[in-house]
């Protein structure tokens, strides 16, 4: 059992199209310990979603080394140790809320295993979805759809949750509430979360560490450790003076970089 959730060394990330190679990110060194809440912050086109897709094994790296929970990203994906939440929720419109959450139990060959109804009820209660099981996605609000997507990712109890701007399309009030709920789920489960966002406030509010990325060319500018300014008690306090000044520093850094 490895204590490291994700370890990357000299990672090259990009797209291969025949002989054409487009490098999006190069020379990425990153160590994410288990149980960390890591946010990845950057403007459009900096490669933050691409980095997440490599960890998820949705994209193979061009070069370098990456391990997920001490194994290859593919082994972690096949063992359902990584869960992914997309920006647009990606619920199947022909399946009800309950059927969408059960999807991991009906596909995946050997990985698909019957889930007890108690597990479904537990996850739905955790996400505040109780009573919505028979609704269709078209009958839900944007926030509810994203809750269903998170419930579907959590149903298999992954050790690492990969989230690609999951609240990017939501209004601010809904987003703030889901941020708080996500933090309490993180504390309750103790899993590792890699959370991609383009919002500085969100990145700093959620993350224990914030990776700041820049575009053209995509690169990691800096990794900020916020743990010294966040005690366990003030983690949820948006008006904490130290956190607010940290946000201002991030803004400055990004402005200088671009």
């Amino acid at each position, binding site marked *: 059992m490895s204590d490291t959730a994700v370890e990357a060394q000299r990672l090259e990330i990009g797209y291969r199209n025949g002989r054409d190679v487009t490098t999006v990110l190069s020379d990425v060194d990153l160590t994410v310990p288990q149980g960390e809440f890591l946010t990845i912050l950057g403007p459009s086109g900096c490669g933050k979603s691409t980095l997440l897709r490599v960890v998820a094994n949705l994209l193979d790296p061009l070069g370098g080394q990456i391990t997920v929970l001490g194994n290859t990203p593919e082994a972690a*994906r096949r063992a359902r140790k990584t869960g992914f939440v997309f920006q647009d929720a990606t619920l199947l*419109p022909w399946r009800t809320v309950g059927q969408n959450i059960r999807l991991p139990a009906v596909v995946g060959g050997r990985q698909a295993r019957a889930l007890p109804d108690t597990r479904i009820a537990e996850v739905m209660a955790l996400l505040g979805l109780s009573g919505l099981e028979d609704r*269709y996605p078209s*009958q839900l609000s944007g926030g509810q759809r994203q809750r269903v997507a998170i419930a579907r990712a959590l149903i298999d109890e992954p050790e690492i949750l990969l989230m690609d701007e999951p609240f990017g399309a939501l209004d601010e009030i809904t987003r703030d509430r889901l941020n708080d709920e996500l933090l309490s789920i993180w504390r309750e489960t103790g899993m590792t979360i890699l959370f991609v966002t383009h919002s500085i406030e969100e990145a700093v509010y959620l993350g224990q560490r914030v990776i700041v990325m820049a575009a053209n060319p995509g690169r990691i500018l800096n990794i900020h450790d916020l743990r010294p300014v966040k005690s366990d008690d003030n983690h949820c306090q948006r008006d904490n003076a130290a956190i607010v000044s940290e946000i201002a520093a991030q803004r400055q850094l990004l402005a200088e970089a671009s």
Partner: protein
Amino acid sequence: MTRLSNILAPICGALSILLAWQFLLPLSGVPAYIAPTPTKIIAVFFNQTDLILSNFLPTAIEALAGFFIGNLAAVLFAILFAYARFIRMAYFPVVLFFNTIPILALSPIIILIFGLGMTPKIIIAAIICFFPTLVNMIRGLASASQNEEELFRMLSANKFEIFLRLHLPRSLPMLFSSLRIATATAVIGAIVGEWIGADKGLGALIIQATFNYQSDKLYAAIVASSSLSIAMFALVALVEARVMRGWAR
């Protein structure tokens, strides 16, 4: 109020046209062998019910059989073309070329091969349904979003699971839109087949009535064939509403 007017408005529209047709046509001096009044057409359905029914049934059987065979074949070929790349590359251009042959040019050949019974009409109706559904179904099977494909990859779904749980349901909106169109084209196919060689069916009745200047029978046959299309369309819409309940529109 709005729901009531939604229903009443088209009824009022149709009624006003029928009334104008009924009362203005005799004043215009158009002879009855060219255009009968609506009451004359309705009278055919009451006075010659046997004639209409005995011609309606063969056309209905041909159109329905052609509809099912043509669309079923289209769905199966679409699945083959969507997942067997080499077969698609080899045969899809042939299929497209075949589609450029006008159905009216093809029909005499089919009648020559299969004779004057119902079979050639069913084949013509099936062919005319086949192409739009084939093309729509191929597009429908490929219409899942990148995120949806990635979701199934995350879950390590195998090819059959991806087909059954993602591509097939995703193709349904496009399949149903082409099935709705096929309800009308299947009837056209059956009638075209009957024009070329048949002694029974609405197509045969249309030809006979035309040559004998029996405009009331001609118009009654047109109303009957249109009713057949409408009934098939309603059936498809009913199945679609049942299958796709809950989908976002």
